[in-house]
């Protein structure tokens, strides 16, 4: 465990879904802390509840029991609207399939979350340009997703995730749909975000290589934390 103050605290969380009359317990009495500025990998077999846990931490879903704290906010108690507002400012999302809007340019896709914040046009532009620069796509900003490679699309996805300068970035198999080379570039980029900008990153992955990038790996099995790979020594 990190010695820094945890930014994410999952306390005794239970999550079950009901399918008809049947109740499916996905997460059982799960407790985990994520330190501020940590890069955490979540691994585990398919169906073990990785996405479910990520959704709870990112405020996309609420636990059946237990508490989820992010910073000083108890997000497991927030209303739907409250969560939506909180997500815009506090969480950046990176998806396996990028989820860019096909009709919008890279620039416009990155700008989307900013439309929900009270920013001037000039500030909006500045933030989008900064994010574009960070992912190295300034020269492609007017391209639409269809005109970009998978790796480039994922970089747009990352720029969109960081454009509001959130404290927390969650990524669900961000390299799952990419070839090894592009995957490596994306992982490097995440690494830079964590080191350079002190972002807290929680990444779900099936790829042990990808997990190696993280400082700590959590293994989930049938909704239980079975193993925590010890935090690796700081890389130079």
């Amino acid at each position, binding site marked *: 465990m990190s010695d820094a103050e945890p930014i994410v605290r999952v306390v005794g969380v239970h999550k079950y879904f009901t399918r008809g009359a049947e109740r499916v317990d996905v997460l059982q009495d799960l407790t985990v802390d994520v330190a501020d500025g940590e890069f955490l990998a979540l691994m585990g077999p398919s169906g073990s509840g990785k*996405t479910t846990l*990520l*959704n709870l931490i990112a405020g*996309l*879903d609420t636990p059946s029991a237990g508490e989820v704290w992010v910073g000083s906010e108890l997000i497991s108690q927030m209303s739907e*609207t409250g969560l*939506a*507002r*909180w*997500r*815009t*400012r506090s969480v950046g*999302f990176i*998806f*396996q*399939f990028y*989820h860019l*809007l*096909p*009709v*919008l340019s890279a620039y*416009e896709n990155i*700008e*989307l*979350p900013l*439309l*929900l914040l*009270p*920013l*001037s*046009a000039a500030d*909006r532009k500045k933030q989008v340009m900064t994010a574009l620069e960070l992912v190295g796509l300034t020269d492609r900003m007017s391209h639409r997703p269809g005109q970009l490679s998978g790796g480039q699309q994922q970089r747009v996805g990352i720029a*969109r995730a960081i454009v509001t300068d959130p404290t927390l970035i969650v990524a*669900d198999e961000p390299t799952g749909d990419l070839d090894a080379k592009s995957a490596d570039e994306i992982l490097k980029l995440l690494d830079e975000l964590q080191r350079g900008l002190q972002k807290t990153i929680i990444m779900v992955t099936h790829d042990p290589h990808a997990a190696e990038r993280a400082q700590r790996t959590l293994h989930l099995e049938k909704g239980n934390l079975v193993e925590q790979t010890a935090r690796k020594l700081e890389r130079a």
Partner: protein
Amino acid sequence: MLSLLGTLAKFAVIIVKNVRRNLLRTTFTSLGTMTLVLVVTLVWSVLSFIDDQTSEKANDLKVLITEKNKSPSRLPYAYVSSLKEGAARAPDDVRPVDYMTWVFYGGMLDPTKPSRENFIFLIGGEPEKIPTMMEELDQLGPADRARLDRAVQRMKEQRNACVIGPEQLKTMNKKVGERIKVSGLIFKGIDLEFEIIDTFPDAAKRYAQTSVMNIEYLLAALEEYKVTNKKPHPEGDAPVAFVVLRVKNRAELERLTAQIGDSPLYTAPAVRCESQGSAISSFLEAYKDIFWGMRWLLGPAVLFTLSLVIANAISISVRERRMEIALLKVLGFRPGHVMGLVLGEALLIGTLSGVFSAGGAYLLINKLAGGIPFPIAWFQRFFIPDQALWWGLAVGAGTAFVGCIFPALSARSVRVADVFSKIA
């Protein structure tokens, strides 16, 4: 404030881009919308004209005096001199502010060839009453009005002068300045020769097929017939179709009706006296089922279909974009934002198509086609009123709004967690 406007503009950009993404579907939807708005516009044009005709205008009340219980109505010309005073006897009796006598004269240019080109129908009246007592002519622009006034002056000075509607003139293949000989059909044996001195201005759209003459010309011919044949013309003792009086207000209208009803002057034949609106209403009684159907069945059915067309297109869009909607929600877009995007898309298609359709119909039908040919009662054609442009806007926007309620609600209820599920 400025940043809010900027944000709205960005939302508008997204909406426009969404509308353009499936051009084929958007095109079909707007073609469908345009067709249906066109139908509604045509139906409402006819209805609004009929409503206008049958409604009483508070400050322009007209009274129609016809023969009681007979159709077609025939009144002796001798009635006119007292009727135009409203049958007033006492000094404080109500007197009409204006009047006009109507006779109908119709006939053939060539009696051996009974065809449409050969037929002409003229309304005879006091020429100086034409601009004020015939519907809508008082609304002509100054240039057209001056032209009509010159024609009226000439008709007063020259009894056989007539003004013919531009379309009627074309049908007969005649020109202004030519003379025509008409053998009477309504008044058999009364053959009249006219000089065509002008046409009705194009702005007087209702009069495209209408022609007017000086009533004196017909009356003089009937007199001459009597002298020549040593007996009156069979229609000669009652040549007048009706007399129209204008009164100041409802109260005067009622007093005037009572005055005429109580008068001993009109016994053989007796007269009926009613407001023009109710006179037209009773004429139109025979068609009331058609109008009712247009108003309450056809119109609503078309509006309903229109909502369905839009609802269908928008719900396909929403279904196709569930993932995108879920993504927007993940980013923090609230249900209201999502509904706004869906609503905006529907409104954009509906409003533009509606305005375009109504505006196009207005231009094409009024300016190029010369009205909707819909002969019902004595109306030949209908025109699209100016307010149809608003109808297009309102119908387009209204049906788009109704049509997108369900798709918008379904967009609103898309679950955010869907983006992470495996179905992507």
